[in-house]
């Protein structure tokens, strides 16, 4: 348990990185004087012999990346233990590994996790974030050459939860990182899927879905640092907002450094506004320091329900309410389908349906 620190400076809200976030609602996580409990917050519920979980002292397992994110800095200061999940070299997991949270108290807590994927390993990990929490959370991914990790982070928090999270991958030669971030729950979620490369031939595919209703603040800030030649990145986030004061923020920062020749990147964010009073901020940002690239592009759209689609479905006898649901499901299908797990897909869609029904009622 740590309270006061010397070098930590809480954000004021004027910083670029915090200008969208309602700081009054972060549950004290960014306050230098709040008591924040450091915990090892993840456990594996489906054991697999090729995967090892150990809780290590933070001194013995320092962070593998630099971060200027204040929530991450704060978390690193207060934790004393790190959960280390290691996927063995050459492991080919046939079933996804399921991770859940443990020890969440609903009071300010912080946690740090390192997921190391061994040489040429192939794994899917699903993290279930559910229940109440006020959590500053960092997960780093260390992808050894030739490894392939699909990480599915499900934010199905309860209505009160606060979650500040950094999910940072360091992708080495010929490794592939597939991130799927699904955020439907929580009062305030601010999640940073970030990527850097440490060898050529590496690739990142960052997919996301968020659905915000009344009063929810769901913020995703992506950062892809093309700092090696011949790496690839794809970003595709889709969001829908319904109800008064629903607020989403999507920031997509992609940097192509001077040495990153042969970079191939594209990022896309699409938002669907289902009611007035909801607000979707979307800021794609692409900075290119070399012209020797394969391709770079970005797009961002925010639109309302397509009345033509609704009319088409209704004209086939489908009641308006079901038609709306079909269109929303259709909008999200591309992302949800990537989870490749029918049970989770149905659970998410049911939650979206019922949240939507609440807003419409």
């Amino acid at each position, binding site marked *: 348990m740590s309270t006061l620190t010397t070098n930590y400076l809480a954000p004021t809200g004027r910083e670029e990185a915090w200008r969208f976030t309602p700081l009054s609602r972060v549950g004290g996580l960014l306050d230098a004087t709040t008591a924040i409990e450091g915990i090892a917050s993840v456990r594996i519920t489906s054991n697999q012999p090729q995967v090892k979980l150990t809780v290590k002292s933070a001194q013995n397992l320092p962070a593998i990346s630099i971060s200027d994110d204040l929530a991450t800095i704060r978390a690193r200061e207060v934790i004393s233990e790190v959960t280390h999940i290691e996927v063995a070299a050459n492991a080919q997991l046939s079933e996804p590994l399921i991770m859940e949270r443990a020890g969440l108290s609903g009071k300010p807590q912080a946690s740090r996790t390192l997921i190391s994927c061994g040489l040429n390993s192939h794994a899917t990990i699903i993290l279930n974030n559910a229940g109440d929490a006020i959590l500053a959370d960092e997960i780093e991914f260390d992808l050894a050459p030739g490894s392939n990790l699909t990480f599915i982070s499900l934010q199905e928090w309860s209505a009160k939860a606060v979650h500040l999270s950094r999910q940072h991958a360091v992708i080495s030669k010929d490794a592939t990182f597939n991130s799927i971030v699904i955020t439907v729950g929580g009062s305030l979620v601010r999640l940073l899927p970030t990527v850097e490369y440490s060898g050529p031939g590496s690739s990142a595919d960052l997919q996301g879905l968020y659905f915000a209703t009344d009063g929810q603040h769901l913020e995703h800030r992506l950062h892809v640092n093309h700092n090696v030649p011949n790496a690839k990145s794809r970003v595709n986030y889709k969001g829908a907002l319904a109800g008064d004061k629903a607020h989403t923020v999507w920031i997509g920062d992609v940097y192509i450094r001077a040495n990153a020749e042969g970079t191939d990147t594209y990022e896309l964010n699409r938002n669907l506004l289902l009611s007035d009073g909801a607000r979707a901020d979307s800021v794609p940002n692409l900075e290119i320091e070399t012209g020797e690239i394969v391709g770079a592009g970005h797009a961002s759209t925010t639109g309302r329900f397509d009345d033509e689609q609704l009319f088409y*479905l209704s004209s086939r006898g489908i009641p308006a309410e079901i038609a709306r649901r079909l269109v929303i499901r259709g909008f999200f299908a591309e992302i949800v389908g990537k989870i490749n797990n029918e049970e989770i897909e149905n659970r998410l869609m049911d939650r979206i349906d019922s949240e939507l029904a609440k807003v419409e009622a």
Partner: protein
Amino acid sequence: MSTLDIKGLQVSVATEAGFTEILRGVDLTIKSGETHAIMGPNGSGKSTLAYSIAGHPKYTITGGSVTLDGADVLAMSVDERARAGLFLAMQYPVEVPGVSVTNFLRTAATAIRGEAPKVRTWVGEVKEAMKALNMDPNFAERNVNEGFSGGEKKRHEILQLELLKPKFAILDETDSGLDVDALRIVSEGVNRIKGNSDLGILLITHYTRILRYIKPDFVHVFAAGKIVEAGGPELADKLEEKGYAEYTTA
């Protein structure tokens, strides 16, 4: 025996300059089993008539009535109209991303029939109907109209017509964009449906070609927002030869 009765229908659309009147009093009665063709110049309001009957929100009804066996169609929501037995094969069918044809057809059939079709017979029914229209079975797994060619979209409309079995179908330029073979296949489809039911048809077209397959009982000339002449099949031939000049320069 059913009757679709359109009386003095007046329709406007909202434009930047205010409301523009497009339909200026349309009168038309269609009975079960009858096929009515409507021909008329571009922009004369044919699609507006079709959409207004189907209930598209873009159009404001400013006068007249549409009834189906006496029931006030204009008071119904779009989906109620479809469930009452009206079907519109659209000139420009809409793409619905992420919604598969299978899911869409089943949801629509469930709504129209009032209960979910039995899985076993339903799958066969869809397959059969697709085969009859020469549609690749892969279309079932694709998203509704997404990336379909113009002709494929039109076949998909007729597929729905076959599965949803309405009382009256409005076919808005279903023949446009079809190649010769597709035109025959689609027309045969319509005739087959008609043969198996008592379907009444309102067929909007620019070409007499389709009328050689789907024989109209009546042909109506549509100009400047209303029907300006009515006759039998011979009227279509006259239009093909002489065009619309005599109706539009009046």
